[in-house]
């Protein structure tokens, strides 16, 4: 019997702890102190948090003045561990002969790993700051080009971050 370890409440606690009343008073005191300290919660959604450039929100496509940067090489689709990306290429008359006729990201599959951004040879797909994703149906969760294309001016933070740290 020498090897038995015990953890019996009556042995662990002192008398004052066991009768609870002083502990309740201590707890109330703690709450009272917090009321006069500065708050770190915020009034979301009235008060929104703006992430840094390093934040990995939903992946988006970079839109230049003359259209998307993407050349539909399909590497994002290949590297995506969750198979969230579908790219269908077609030919254009522009200097870069190839463009995505269809580009869909299934946000129900996406795991925000950022591999697509890392593999992209054209810096055409980047992680945005958008973290507010709500869908009414499975189909709504599949974002097409119209939802994915974001003007390059709105993505400067992320592009800067990539240039500095990648």
């Amino acid at each position, binding site marked *: 019997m020498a090897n038995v370890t015990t953890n019996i409440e009556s042995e662990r606690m002192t008398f004052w702890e066991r009768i609870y009343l002083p502990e309740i008073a201590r707890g109330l005191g703690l709450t009272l102190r917090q009321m006069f300290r500065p708050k770190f919660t915020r009034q979301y959604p009235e008060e929104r948090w703006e992430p840094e450039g390093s934040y990995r929100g939903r992946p988006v496509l970079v839109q230049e003045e003359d259209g998307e940067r993407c*050349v*539909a*090489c*399909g*590497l994002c*689709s*290949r590297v995506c561990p969750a*198979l969230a990306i*579908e790219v269908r*290429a*077609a*030919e254009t008359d522009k200097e*870069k*002969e*190839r463009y995505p006729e269809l580009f*869909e990201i*299934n946000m129900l599959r996406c795991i925000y790993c950022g591999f697509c951004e890392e593999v992209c*040879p*054209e810096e055409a797909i980047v992680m945005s700051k958008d973290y507010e994703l709500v869908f009414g149906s*499975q189909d709504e969760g*599949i974002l097409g080009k119209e939802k994915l294309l974001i003007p390059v001016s709105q993505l400067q933070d992320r592009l800067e971050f990539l240039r500095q740290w990648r």
Partner: protein
Amino acid sequence: MPKIIIDGQSIVAKQGQTIIEAALDHGITIPHFCWHPALSVAGNCRMCLVQVGNQKKDSEGALQFMADGQPDVAWIPKMQIACATPVADGMVVDTAGKRTVDAQEAIMEFLLVNHPLDCPICDEAGQCKLQEYAFRHSRGKSRFDDEKVHKPKRVQLGPQIMFDGERCISCSRCIRFADEVAHQPVLTFVQRGDKVTIETFPGTTFDSPYSMNVIDICPVGALTSIDFRFRARVWEMSFTDSVCPGCARGCNIKIGVMNNEVLRVEPRTNMHVNTYWMCDYGRLTTPAAINDNRTDGPMIRRDGQLQSASWEEATAHAAAILKAARPQDVVVLGSAHASNEDNYALAQLASKVIKTANVDFIKHIDATFGDSQLRVPETAPNAIGAHAVGVAPGNGGYNLGQLAERIASGSVKVLVVLEDTLDSSSQRLAELAAGVDAMIVFSSKASVTAMQASVLFPAASFAESHGTFTNTMHRVQHFKPAVVTQENVRYMGMAMSRWDKFGAPNDRWTDGTRRNSRAAWRVIRDLAAALGTTWSWKSAEDVFADISQHVAAFQSMTYASLDANYGLVLGKGGQPDPVGTVYESHVLKPN
């Protein structure tokens, strides 16, 4: 026979071989772009530079060795190109030493100076020789920071071929192919130095029936297929070994499938049949033949209309038709379009179950189709095989030529047709067949004949089942399923491409149809069972085992031996032709 040492390995080369050929025969691949075993030696890419020397001898003629036992070699001061240096007795070759690798890296750097590095756009990416060697023989970073030379892009060299001058590394494989294999010498280099590019001679176009092979042999993405351009990346497709159904040559092919749709077909090396090539007709028509105008789900004619039915209903209905008819009133047509297995099963059904002698098949001959190279006038892939497995009129039976008259005289009540169209024999036959009491059709195509059927069984095509074709040179060749049907879906499993394998029903990219079709031999087996004869076949391989057991010409052939020997000739199942060295210029790796 010259004895040479390559990378320390002693090999006996053939007289007159070059170093690159001797090395390849012994499993050593020396990096190269312009060399191709079927083309003349150009020696202009310089990628196959190796160090060559002779073992030193003393005044007595005895070979000299160094202290560590290695041969003491007098190296030739300059590097030699392995593709144009003939082997000589006592030659020592180093293909992996520092000097060789340095030389190859230097060549790669030169080739990449003006290469646009637009791999994300280029269709060749993933199966590109330049990419492959850039991985192995390159410094990874370019020291060239000037403006690259700009050349014509998107130049159409022929009806099927698009040329991109900037990607071209001027290996001249396409020029030599046009000249030596296609016998249409219309391609040439123009300009000089770093401005050199490829053009067709004024007033000509590269439209040879074999023109698209230059797309395969182009080591970079300079020549791309207009038909395929940008439809998929190579790694998004699954590639399955198969046999071209375009004519009785039976060129070996690979079928590229994505989203259960055949996107492209490319030749596969088989030195016995098609060497490295295939014709444009086969390449362009095979995908459509598998993708378009297909039957889907069994059908029974009720009140004059073809209506969907279950497999059991259709089988029972067909069995009832056959039971009601007298054997001599039934005519069974096999097919030169169907596999040996399907034809064998049908021939067995005719002779053992229906007990009719009226068995034949339609021959497809188009004299204008054949040429002196690969194409043969017989435009169906398996006429020899159909005949060999027993699709021929039996004792007292009548043949195809007599069929029309017999139908006209009303002595044909039931017509069983496998995988063929009656109007391809004669229009009159097709019209007369409409008057036959009942037609049982096994067809993968929604053809006119299929639409005339009383019972229509949707057969799996050659791209959806295992099977064998026997080509015009009597070579039996095995093909494998590439496209998923409701029947073979569990078998296909990991053979599908990554996207097809892991796609779920709610993914939009997996919208390719999985047809409700079955291999014809299986439907015939079930039909025989409904008529009271049970066969134990569980797979096409079982049927083939039965053929090799009962048909003398197929003796001792199995799918495994067909695969290992690149096909076997009828009657010579036990004596395979030597396979030799199988050269594949560049393929998707890992394949």
